Structures are given as structure tokens and as C-alpha cells.
């Protein structure tokens, strides 16, 4: 898979903590800078996305192709920054934060930038407060989505699920805390640790000599510390 390093994103300064207003101003400046950088990075794609470009196909013919930004591979915190959503909001759908742990019978509505724009335009200026409140309930910060500008980009589809951050560093970490609590309650922790240390060898299976409670520290945890790396996936749409 070809990977091309296009740009290094700026690291924004931390909030000073002097006052709430200063922090808010700093946050807004950071969001504006990020958005300006992305406008710059994505600018060469705008024309191709609008007018298309003629490309050679494998069958020997040429086709008019329109490039679609189809995926943005990043963890949840990075998506929350880039898409201007709250940390407890889903980049894909409009699930309320108090329903995140449920098992919904039907999927929630998908974030749709066109619909959102229409909703915002339909409201009178007098209702600006209410529309801001409406988006705030959905965990969306208006105007902070760096992907809302370019054509042929659906921000909700850019987010892709990931086993490393969602499962291994996310759910499994939580699950281990639950299991540890459960074992402690039933006084089975020592038996569990002893069994863990006695697991027979297996290919690509290591790190069994420490108790389970200490086994998920170190290298794998360090993987969680990440910064934003520009690494788009492109699909060619003929």
C-alpha cells in the first residue's frame, strides 16, 4: 500500500487555564488554524473532485474519474478534533451520549452535513440560539468540521472502525477492570493470575510471566499515545 507523507499538522498550544474566556478563545484559535491548514492541504483535490480527471483504466480505456475522500484513519480523539464533535459524540450517527452503552433496535440517524446546513439555513436569525442548542445536543460544534468544505466528502463516512483503539486499547482495557473487580469480589484473583502464568506456549503468544493485572502496561499502552498523522485513503470513482 503506497503511503505518502503530505504534511505535518501543527501542534496547538495548551489552554492556559487563566480564565474560561481565554481558554475558549485559545480553543477557537486552534480550531481555526486547523481548519485553515486542512483547506490548504485539501485544496488541490477540489478541482479534481468537481470537474474530474481523465485516467487510464486497466481495460485499456480512459475514464473520467472523480476522486472521493473515502476514509480517514485515526482514533476517536483525533476524529473528535477534526470533525468538531464532542468527545462523547459519535462521528457517524446522532446518538445521544446517555444512550451510548445501549443496544439500539434501529440505527440512529447518520450525521449529514447537507441536512445540517439546511436545518441551519431554515432557522431565522432570531432562532440562532435554539439551532446552536440543537447542534450542541448532538455534540456538534458548528463550523469546526475540517471536512465540511471539500466536495464529494461525507464526514460521517470518513470515520472507520478500528480494532486497535476500539477493542484492544478500549473495550479490552475496560473489560479487564471489570473482570478484576469481579474476581476480587469473589476472591478468585490469585487463581486467575496463577492460571495466566501457567498458560502453555503458543506461536506469537508471549508475556505470560507477569500477573494479569500488570500485563497490559508498557508497550501496548504507549501505542495509545498518538498524534494526528495525515494519511488519507482514496477511492477512485469512475
Amino acid at each position: 500500500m503506497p503511503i505518502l507523507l503530505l504534511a505535518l499538522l501543527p501542534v496547538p498550544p495548551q489552554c492556559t487555564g487563566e480564565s474560561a474566556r481565554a481558554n475558549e478563545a485559545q480553543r477557537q484559535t486552534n480550531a481555526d488554524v486547523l481548519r485553515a491548514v486542512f483547506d490548504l492541504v485539501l485544496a488541490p483535490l477540489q478541482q479534481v473532485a468537481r470537474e474530474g480527471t481523465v485516467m487510464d483504466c486497466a481495460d485499456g480505456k480512459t475514464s473520467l474519474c472523480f476522486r472521493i475522500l473515502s476514509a480517514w484513519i485515526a482514533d476517536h480523539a483525533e476524529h473528535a478534533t477534526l470533525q468538531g464533535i464532542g468527545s462523547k459524540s459519535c462521528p457517524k450517527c446522532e446518538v445521544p451520549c446517555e444512550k451510548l452503552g445501549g443496544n439500539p433496535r434501529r440505527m440512529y440517524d447518520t450525521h449529514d452535513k447537507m441536512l445540517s446546513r439546511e436545518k441551519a439555513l431554515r432557522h431565522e436569525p432570531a432562532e440562532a440560539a435554539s439551532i446552536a442548542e440543537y447542534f450542541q445536543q448532538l455534540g456538534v460544534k458548528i463550523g469546526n468540521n475540517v471536512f465540511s468544505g471539500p466536495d464529494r466528502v461525507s464526514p460521517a463516512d470518513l470515520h472507520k472502525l478500528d480494532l486497535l483503539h476500539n477493542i484492544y486499547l478500549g473495550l479490552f482495557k475496560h473489560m479487564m477492570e471489570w473482570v478484576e473487580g469481579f474476581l476480587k469480589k469473589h476472591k478468585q484473583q490469585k487463581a486467575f493470575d496463577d492460571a495466566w502464568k501457567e498458560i502453555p506456549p503458543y506461536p506469537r503468544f508471549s508475556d505470560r510471566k507477569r500477573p494479569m493485572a500488570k500485563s497490559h502496561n508498557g508497550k501496548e499502552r504507549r501505542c495509545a499515545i498518538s498524534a494526528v498523522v495525515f494519511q488519507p485513503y482514496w477511492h477512485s470513482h469512475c
Partner: protein
Amino acid sequence: MRNLGRCISAILAFTLLNPDSSQYPDFKSALKCVTALVDFTLMAQYRSHTPDTLSYMESYLQTFHWTKDIFLEFRTSKATWAQANRQDRELREVMADQRAKEVHHRTVANCRQQADQERVERSDRRADFIRHENHFNFIKMHYMTHFASNVRRFRSISMYSTVIGELAHKDQIKDGSCRSNKNEATLQILSHYGRQHALGIRLQTIEPLSQVEGVIVVEDSGMEMPTVPSHSTPHRVLKACMKNTSMLTELCTVLNIHYSNMIEEILRFIRQTAADDRRLPADPAELGLLPVEGFAQLEIPVPDFQETDRFQIHRARCTGTKPFRNGGSSNDWVWVQTGGEPNYEDLRGSVVARLLALFKIRNILSEAADVHRVALVPILDPINGGRFHIPSGHIRVSNRINGRDMRIVSIGAMIGQAQVIPSGEKQWIVNHRIDLRTFNEINKIILSNYIQ
């Protein structure tokens, strides 16, 4: 954490194997919840899916949601603890005020009784508050509901792994920064990886082109391309030759195996093989004279799950009584394919066995002087016909009680390493979630048994 997911359900099954009557429902729910989450994760790693695998994923997710409340009491956040402590403090003060307002005199026993009642009430209120405040509302829990629809729309989850992005911090940025002269390093970092990557791709292209035989010239470009793919299936290889094992008697001495048992098993093995000139002699005296070579390791190539040209090498060790790497002896567990065994219908002929001896024996009495590469293994019987043990969520195996358990098998019958976890006397839990291939194979069996 990846290792954790592969073995936690089996270890938990072992740990929670013997609950008392009051613990049984809790243990069962906890095990079911963890197992469902691990199964969901394993199935999410499939590189290709069918409608069936997606429906299994959804059913695992539902099972997880139905059973996850068993862990709700362990979902207390720091803020909830702090609030519970504050409420408890306030309640204690209110109770103390009420006690102070009471004018009539009470005995010491009465005071103690009231203090106990207050403590119980406070504890109950605190527990109620914590139970009410605890929740599973965090974003990674919600993401699980999108997995199946994500596969339907965008195909395999593993295609979009952030592992590549995480590795890019080192390959693209740190390495580039190290090799720059630190003077306006940004542009140097940006150009470094592109250059390295282009050179790497070029080298990979040159490598197959440099093979002279079996190449074709691509029209108009002058480039040569190989006509046949260079992939080949690796073979099983015996390694780590043991000293002083040139005869069967010596091999038995080194491995501490009874010679008569070994001869008996070899004779059985000979009777099962086709009667041709390659067959070993059926006379024990002649067998004892044949040259033998003992080994401590067998390399078994196991194809990667849903891959055709990639293999994992399982290195199954068999050191007999000798220590391995300053530890105890290492006699690994393996899956053995035994054709036509009625006991193993439910496991489709695959059985778990432990490697006791690995050797090759040369038939110098025949003209061809064929070499037979074989292993001595005690095989384990599946309990309950290899059916799923509902409380533990795993298949269990045990030592064979009736009949012979030792067997000589060709190394070609070894299909990979197995992982079993001891659970009681001469019983083991088979950890079929250790890799995707084993999980898929055993899961098919479990699901077909359910359908029957």
C-alpha cells in the same frame, strides 16, 4: 492486550469452573459476557465475511449487551465515588443531628443498635446511588453497534487499521527527524520517507525481475515479468537433532519411554500403512536394528486464516525429560488429524495430543531405503463427544480411560500447535480462541452441533 483477548475466556472458564450454588448465576453471566465480547472481536478480524458471519457478530453483540449488567457495579467512576462519599458524609451528619435532638436517655445497647441500623441504611443508600449512577455510556461501547454495518458498506475492518498510522510515527516522522540535519527539518522529514519508500518498491520490483528463468518481457516496456508465481507450500521440518539416538533402544532411553511400548506402537503403525516395499519390517528384532534419529522440534507450516500464500510456522517442541531454556521439559500440545476414528466425529477427526517423541527411522532393509518421519503421542479424548461445555463455553478433553492412548503418527498428520489449559485432574480446556483458524474450525463444529 491482543494476547489477553486470545486466552482470557479460557482462563476465566478455568478460574470460575467450580462455583457454589450462590455464585453459579453470576459466574455463568460473567463468563458468557466475556466470551461473547471475545467472539465478537475475533469475528470482526475476519478478512472476508458472509451474511452468516455478520449475523453471528450481531448475535454475539446482543449476548454481550444482555449479560453485561453483571459488571455494572464495577463501572464506578471517580466522580461517582466522590459524590457517593459526599452524600454519605451529609447523611451521617443529618443522622448525628437527629440523634442529638433526641432528649430521652437511652442505654448503651440501644445506642449500639441504632448505630448499626444507621450504618446499614447508609451502606444501602450508597450502594443504591452507585448502582443508579453506573453506566456503560462510553463511545467505544457504542462503536460496536456500527461494526456489522461498517463491514457491509466498507468491507473488512482490518483494512482500516490504525496500526499502520501508529507505526508511521516511527517510520515516517522519527526516522526522518533522526536523519535530518535538524536545520529546517520539516521539509527533510517530508521527503525522507517518500524517497525510502520509492527505493523499497523499486528493490521489490527488481527482485523478481532478476530471476532469469521463467520470465516474460512486457510488451513495449522492455520489462520482464515472472510467468509463474514464486509461492510454494513449505514442508514440515524436523529440527534440533538429539545426541545418542541412533537406535530405537537409545531413543527410548533418552526420552524415558518403555521400549516394548514403543515397539508395540510402531508395529500398530506399520499394520495401518499400505503393504508395499516402502513399509517398515514387521519383525521387532529387525526394527530394533534400523537406524533412527531423534529430534526435539517440529516445524509445522500452518496457513494463515483466509490467506492462501502466507504461512505461520508453529515450532512444536519435544525435549523429553530434558530441560528447555533453563525451564522444565517442553513437550508441546498439537492437533493431530486422525482419519476414521469414531470417537472424534464431532471434532471432525482432529484430536489434541502431546508430543512425546519425534524421530525418523530409515528402512535400510528395503531397496529404496525410505525414511519415515513419525511422532509418538498420547492422544486425549474429547469429553461429551467433543460437544461444547455450556458452563465453561469451551470443549474439554481428558486422558483416555479405556484402551490405548499412545499412538505413532506420521508428522504429516500434525496440523498445528494446540493450546490447552489444565482444569482438574487429567482434564484440560481447549482454548479454541487462541487464533482465528482454530476459532473458525471449532466454531463451525459448535454451531453445527447446535443445529443438530
